[in-house]
């Protein structure tokens, strides 16, 4: 079961983000939400313990690629594992360039998703 660290869901689609947060909370995880990469950076820097970041790729203001670029530059955030979730049919290939822990397509297979999440939080 989840520890005391937080799991961050970063997606500009508030409906999907809300569903994921509710499902994760129902599974016992502590969840924080961010609307885009910029907000995610702020949240991650403010939060001392983030066990995993669930990251969408296409977002306004700061997309997933830019967020990842900023994350790895910041020593305090670089080690946090990231799972990319995207509706892009080519998401898995695009995610390989980001050096993330996993990439999953939308719509998400939640059973598989929860299994992956449990490896990190």
């Amino acid at each position, binding site marked *: 079961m989840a520890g005391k660290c937080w799991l961050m869901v970063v997606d*500009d*689609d508030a*409906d*999907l983000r*809300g*569903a*994921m947060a*509710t*499902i994760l909370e*129902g599974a016992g995880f502590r969840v924080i939400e961010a609307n885009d990469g910029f907000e995610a950076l702020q949240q991650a820097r403010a939060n001392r313990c983030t066990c995993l970041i669930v990251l969408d*790729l*296409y*977002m*306004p203001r700061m*997309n997933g690629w830019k967020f990842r670029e900023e994350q790895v530059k910041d020593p305090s955030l670089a080690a946090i594992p990231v799972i990319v979730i995207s*509706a*892009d*049919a*080519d998401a898995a290939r695009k995610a390989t360039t980001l050096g993330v822990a996993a990439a999953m*397509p*939308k*719509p*998400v297979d*939640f059973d598989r998703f929860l299994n992956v999440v449990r490896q990190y939080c």
Partner: protein
Amino acid sequence: MRRRRLKSPRDTATQPRRLAASDVASEWRAPAAPFGTDPAGVQAMLAAIVESSDDAIVSKDLDSTIMTWNGGAERIFGYTRDETIGRSITMLLPPEHLHEEDHILATLRRGERIDHFETVRVGKDARRVDVSISVSPIRDAMGSIVGAAKIARDITERKKIETERARLLASERAARAEAEGANRAKDEFLSVVSHELRTPLASMLGWIRVLRMGKEEHAVRALNTLERSIGVQRKLIEDLVDVSRIVTGRLRLELRRIDLRSIVHATVEAMAVEATTKGVQLGAVLGDLPAEVQGDPERLEQVVLNLLSNAVKFTPSGGRVLVRLEAADLEARVTVEDTGQGLTAEFLPHLFERFRQAESVAARGRESGGLGIGLAIARNLVELHGGTIRAKSAGENKGAVFTVTLPLAPITTPAPDTDKGEAANPGELDVPRTVR
């Protein structure tokens, strides 16, 4: 081997045997007949060969004066010997090629040849002739350069074939590039469609999973989200169906006389909540007088709603969107102006293209959502109403102005037997296959 000066026919008439026959006689074995083997016979035969050549064989002195002119030259350029001998060779040069003669003479004076120089000359009938010319210096008995022998081959037909081949090649390349571009745009479009259909689906499946958790406190939000996501998908599917109808020419309008004020008012009402939620100030100036057009109310509402929702979507919080309706000069004009992110000069010409917009959505990273075909549909709908749609923007982050014009409906006369004309007849209009 020593070369001798090539004489003009006038010269050879008096001194017929000086034409370099001795130069070639030792190497060339003449047939027995009809000229025999004596130098005079050989020279006569060489003269006959020159005369019968299809190529123009001409000699000139270092002042460019023509000295000899064969039958080939007559056929190619149309001038007889009498019309050319004694005149300057520049009579054959078009004005824009006159400089070539200086270059040719300079080359000859250095004792060098010119081989297969492709250029243009002018015939007697002013016809341009594409020629390939080779020029060799003629030397006198002392070895001094005294003139030039020039062979010109008519390559007009070859040039025509080359030009036609180049044109076909360019045309084939352009067609291929266009087809590849269209293919790429369609691929991008399909990718965007896939992305946009998956997004609400992901949300729906998520909230169904939440509902299965059986906690009542989530039910209202789950149902609201499901309803909203289904609405988003329905809109996407309707847009796709519209595009399909436009492509196949099956888009139909239900025309009737309507006041555009009601259309614009309804769309502003429909967008009010979204604009307020986003912090965008939405205003409308509708005027006091009716702006009546022959139109399909649902389709015109679709057009104005598309422009308004784009304006709100691309205008950040604190910005303004203003809709204005005017009726003047036989047309109604709806203007949607925003203070949003604007349009680049590069993208502006492609704004209303069906797949280009989607391509751009893909290129920008789909950060704004949507299929990006709304404006293409809007343009088709406006054009089917006999109107126009235009966009302008001062550039990125400088806002945008979209203007739709529609022909005002004619003023109806009260007489019952008056010919109302096609435009005044409400009902279904079969729209012909649309362009693009």
